[in-house]
């Protein structure tokens, strides 16, 4: 009897052990800002200090991506102002006429509503080459738990192009940045993150040393 009780007791403990784990992926994001990432890349052969005049359109380009959602345009002026203030801090001068510029700076905004897993950074239409970061895929929220989910991310792309001397179909992108994160329902929170993340993009190589 005692032996049988001991066996039952041991099996109860065995069954209870995995429950104590609850999840094999503890922790994780708590705030919208925890999902923010800022990626930059640049052409190491381009002399950023010798081309200090830039032209930037007065509007942000909007791309729908894989979503039919209307993209919010209310942060357009804030985005352009923040880019300009960062360029000024770096010593660049904004030119009203594109013919006076050494480089063009263009900002693009997109939103994507994810209803599953499907988009791989590095393979998207916009990125065009971050081979070292292949193999990443969206996980949030609840990846691996088998239920369907939907969420919206916002992305801001900033590109610096070196216009060719003669008319061509393509231009050389000498610097680009992608800022991505989950969109929050608070405008104040979103704007604060946009400003902070634009600042961060200009605080990475080639405009700032590696830390």
């Amino acid at each position, binding site marked *: 009897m005692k032996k049988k009780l001991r066996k039952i007791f*041991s099996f109860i*403990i065995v069954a209870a052990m995995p429950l104590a784990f609850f999840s094999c992926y503890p922790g994780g994001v708590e705030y919208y800002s925890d999902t923010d990432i800022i990626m930059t890349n640049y052409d190491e052969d381009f002399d950023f200090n010798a081309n200090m005049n830039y032209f930037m359109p007065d509007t942000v380009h909007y791309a729908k991506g894989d979503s039919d959602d209307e993209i919010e345009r209310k942060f357009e002026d804030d985005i352009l102002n923040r880019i300009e203030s960062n360029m000024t801090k770096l010593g660049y001068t904004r030119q009203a006429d594109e013919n006076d510029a050494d480089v063009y700076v263009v900002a693009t905004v997109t939103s994507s509503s994810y209803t599953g897993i499907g988009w791989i950074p590095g393979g998207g239409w916009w990125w065009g080459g971050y081979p*070292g970061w292949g193999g990443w895929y969206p996980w*949030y929220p609840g990846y691996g738990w088998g239920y369907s989910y939907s969420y919206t991310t916002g992305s801001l792309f900033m590109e610096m192009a070196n216009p060719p001397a003669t008319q061509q179909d393509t231009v050389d992108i000498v610097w680009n940045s992608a800022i991505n994160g989950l969109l929050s329902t608070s405008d104040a929170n979103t704007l604060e993150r946009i400003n902070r993340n634009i600042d961060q993009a200009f605080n990475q190589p080639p405009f700032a040393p*590696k830390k």
Partner: protein
Amino acid sequence: MRKIKYFIVIAVLALTLSNNSYSQETFTNITYDMSVPLGNTADFISKTSFRGFSFDIGRYVTDNLAIDLRFSWHTFYEEMPFDSYYDGTQTVTGRQYRYINSFPITGGIKYYFNSSSHFMPYIGAGLGAYGQYVRTDMGIYTVENRQWHFGFFPEAGFVYEFSYGTGFVLNARYDNTLAAGGHDGNSYLTFSVGFHFRH
């Protein structure tokens, strides 16, 4: 991998066929495990894991010698600060959440120094297959490597039987896995405390 299979088959046969006068008893150890990452595991996640357990079944081959099969689950986790990561001309800045889930399935031997007493210190060793899932979340993206590794361990501990056939077990084990599939192995030191049942 083939060697591991042979080892497990031999261990199972020994468990089921062993039939001398000392080898009638089997035992079960169920422990809560705390693991300290070492080496390149500590480079990836430096925090001690407090999520782990082991389930160990074995049979006494002689009064002093036992063989056993173990299944464990150890989860390591660390939230990294908001930081920049560099690869050539590329920079990615964000907060990383890093995870390692390790699932050792091993066979081993234990030698007990004082088997006729309530207090039985022992040393042991073993080897087997370790499933190891190494994952990094950053932004809304994740990358995960799932790989089975060959691994081995030495261990030392003691069993204290407070009544016949029932007691506490406490041990320390160094789990070490070799590189496989282009992925580094992992190593960590586990301290286990739990129950020991002799059947």
